């Protein structure tokens, strides 16, 4: 079955340290891939997306993600985390020509320590 997996439920990172949030997908074809962030009381905000082409994509707020077909992964990274990055992060995917609905992972909660 098609699925998106985020192996880490909760991650704590020190402010200024680097961050990597993991996302794996299970599909026959390469899906469109997205990362969303949700701060408390807010909606889901799109951080970045992968469609095709360059496998390293840049997003907002200093985030980037790398698509690795061989590992079926789309991990989110940030070189230096700020306290305001504390939020919940969702990886999502959709399959071209299989509808436009997104399939989400369970999310990773990021805490930032000072």
């Amino acid at each position, binding site marked *: 079955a098609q699925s998106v997996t985020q192996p880490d439920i909760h991650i704590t990172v020190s402010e200024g340290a680097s961050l990597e949030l993991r996302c794996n997908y299970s599909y026959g074809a390469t899906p*469109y891939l*997205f990362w*969303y962030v949700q701060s408390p*009381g*807010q*909606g*889901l*905000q*799109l951080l970045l*997306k992968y*469609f095709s082409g360059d496998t390293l994509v840049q997003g907002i707020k200093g985030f980037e993600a790398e698509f690795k077909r061989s590992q079926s992964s789309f991990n989110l990274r940030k070189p230096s985390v700020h306290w305001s990055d504390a939020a919940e992060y*969702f990886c*999502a995917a*959709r399959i071209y020509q299989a*509808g*436009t*609905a*997104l*399939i*989400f*992972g*369970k*999310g990773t909660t990021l805490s930032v320590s000072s």
Partner: protein
Amino acid sequence: EPEVTQTPSHQVTQMGQEVILRCVPISNHLYFYWYRQILGQKVEFLVSFYNNEISEKSEIFDDQFSVERPDGSNFTLKIRSTKLEDSAMYFCATIRPGTAVYEQYFGPGTRLTVT
């Protein structure tokens, strides 16, 4: 930048009651979606709506659910007879026309509590 808005932010209802959740999409957006997130679980797709009709729906979207766009602006999700398991955060999302990868813009959500 225009945003998707949802009302109410929190709705408490008794089991068996009907609820209507409202979404105001961004004005020129054409595709509309409802998703839900039960506490501690994944965000799940419910239904998509395009050109005044349902485009896709998931197994969750059974006869208890309906959607409509009654006045050309608001996009509503109705649950006819709520059950305890309908308690969740409900998100509305819309797609801007012309985007190659169908970027979905989400509202802040409505937290539905069924008692």
